[in-house]
């Protein structure tokens, strides 16, 4: 399962060392790009197959028990939804629609799935952005502290904390945060992106905080920020712990290197050694976790959005799955999977740019 903090940081010394020719990077990127395209085609196939598995249920749910027993009614239903055409034809038809940006119509909202996604994506993206920024800042800092104070009390405390962080169910943290922050202390507003009745700012980016600033409406900016703090923090809990663990092990691999020792021996101030030597060396391994962080933020988003009534992609995916809204399910899975593999692709390329040795593998 990708949520597992089991992916272990890179071990560059195992790779063949060869410094790239000028076109090495271009070839590396092209090869990865080709793999990405193949993967995307595979994703559409999986999404298509998934949706094809649904109708066997849909016949029963849409027609009811009695009609489902009647072959004529079932046949009529299947014909109506094009289910009687051969499998490959249906897939090609599906791909054709996809290429033209047509993901079909949601049976729940009766809107085009692309329209729905356009509405819900910014809400999740805004939430995820704040949450990942916070997680990166706090997680990396704590991870570095933990590694530099290896086996001291603070390291033990941080390690246990980070293990606790990846063990807490997100929906449970959300519940407690709402109870304490909203119900008891009333420090934070309860649910939604804005106060009830408030109008969203004119849409430019779809991020309410950014749009409110562009509009020059500071009151609305504060309101939007106030609403996003609690869900973003809850969502960040898992990523903070994850980043802390990866940073710790990445820094530990770098910290014993000769160049760090010589930097210290030269009398370079410790904070400069940490920032310019240790952190820079550890950064590539930390960057590779981004894909994992995204997967976890999305997992958390599905749960957090439900509790905080946040109108995002997670809610949409959940509603779609619950109601067997086939076009929406397929649309969301394709969108999310493509973002996911794209992030991993970017991480791969970034890693290749930072560390030329891995272009070979």
């Amino acid at each position, binding site marked *: *399962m990708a*949520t597992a903090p089991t992916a272990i940081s890179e071990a560059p010394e195992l790779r063949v060392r060869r410094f790239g020719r000028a076109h090495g990077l271009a070839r590396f990127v092209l090869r990865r790009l080709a793999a990405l395209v193949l993967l995307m085609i595979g994703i559409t196939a999986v999404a298509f197959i*998934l949706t094809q598995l649904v109708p066997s249920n849909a016949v029963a749910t849409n027609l009811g028990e009695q009609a489902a027993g009647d072959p004529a009614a079932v046949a009529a239903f299947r014909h109506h939804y094009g289910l009687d055409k051969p499998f490959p034809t249906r897939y090609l038809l599906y791909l054709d629609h996809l290429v033209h940006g047509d993901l079909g119509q949601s049976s729940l909202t009766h809107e085009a799935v692309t329209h729905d996604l356009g509405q819900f994506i910014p809400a999740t993206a805004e939430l995820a952005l704040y949450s990942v920024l916070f997680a990166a800042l706090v997680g990396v800092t704590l991870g570095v502290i933990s590694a530099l104070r290896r086996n001291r009390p603070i390291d033990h405390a941080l390690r246990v904390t980070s*293990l606790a962080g990846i063990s807490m169910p997100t929906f449970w943290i959300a519940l407690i945060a709402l109870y304490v922050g909203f*119900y008891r202390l009333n420090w934070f507003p309860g649910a939604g992106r804005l106060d009830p009745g408030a109008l969203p700012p004119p849409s430019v980016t779809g991020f309410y905080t950014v749009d409110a600033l562009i509009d020059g409406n500071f009151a609305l900016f504060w309101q939007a920020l106030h609403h996003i703090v609690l869900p973003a923090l809850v969502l960040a809990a898992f990523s903070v712990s994850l980043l802390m663990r990866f940073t710790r092990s990445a820094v530990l691999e770098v910290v014993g290197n000769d160049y760090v020792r010589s930097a210290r021996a030269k009398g370079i101030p410790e904070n400069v050694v940490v920032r310019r030597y240790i952190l820079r060396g550890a950064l590539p391994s930390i960057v590779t976790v981004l894909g994992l962080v995204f997967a976890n933020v999305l997992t958390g988003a599905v749960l957090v959005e439900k509790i905080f009534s946040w109108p995002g992609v997670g809610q949409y995916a959940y509603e779609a*799955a619950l109601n*067997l809204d086939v076009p929406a399910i397929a649309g969301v899975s394709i969108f999310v999977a493509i973002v996911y593999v794209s992030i991993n692709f970017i991480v791969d390329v970034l890693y290749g740019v930072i560390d030329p040795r891995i272009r070979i593998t």
Partner: protein
Amino acid sequence: MTDLAVETRPARRRVHIPAAWRQPLAITGVVIAIAWVLIAVFAPLIAPHGSLEQTFTPAQSPSWSHLFGTDELGRDVFSRVIFGSRASLPIALLLVALAMTIGSVVGAVAGYFRGLVDGTLMRLTDLFFAFPPIILAMVVAAVLGRGLFNAALAIVVVAWPSYARVSRGLVLSVGQSEYVQSARLLGSSSRRTLFRDVLPNVAGPIFVLATLDLANAILLLAGLSFLGLGAQPPQAEWGSMVADGTQYFQWWWIGTFPGLAIFTVVLAFNFLGDSLRDVFDPQTARRVEES
């Protein structure tokens, strides 16, 4: 050097304690895990009330007669948390075992036969990795129909690929070792070599992965139940009990205690898995993730 150190160790230490058990985190993990297993086994003896008995005043806050209070239907939350261990734990164990079996066999076959078989199987696992687990699990659970067992099957679908990747890498490296080569030269069939010589030697890291995965499986299973795609009411299951709590969150005890139960179980397996990983040659695990 090390041999010498072992020889000169005082003889009174009769039992050799494996490194894993000397770590406080591992011990804590084992103790909590065993405690939960015992609670699950002896649930009817420990729980003061039945999990479905609606005989009390609803929504009482925790007190001596109801340690964790009562829920909105007047059921004893403490008893429901105890019976909840019977829902999540065995199913999580089962699903991880199933995912581990499927994944390691697929990975072993890919790593052993290589070539086209390897390419096909590994591209297939790549495809499963392309979907964030919750999305795939949600869709599969929804397609199969709501229910705890179907939710577990959905998690098997998302969980097996990581075992395939790890076991393939391990088999690739073990397959080149001399004892496997000699077994082949001695005329052992590929199936026999694979199951007798190769698989037993890759079991260690795979079990470590399984321990950590157990933690994730319990979280995901509880998450699906929380969303209403897993256990259905009125069954006492932790995830759906927390979901219940979110609807009445002024009565904090309804959701807090089942959530705490999930947290302790998951923490136990994470403690254990983390310590085990340190013990089982971390270098191997690292190399495997690379390939």
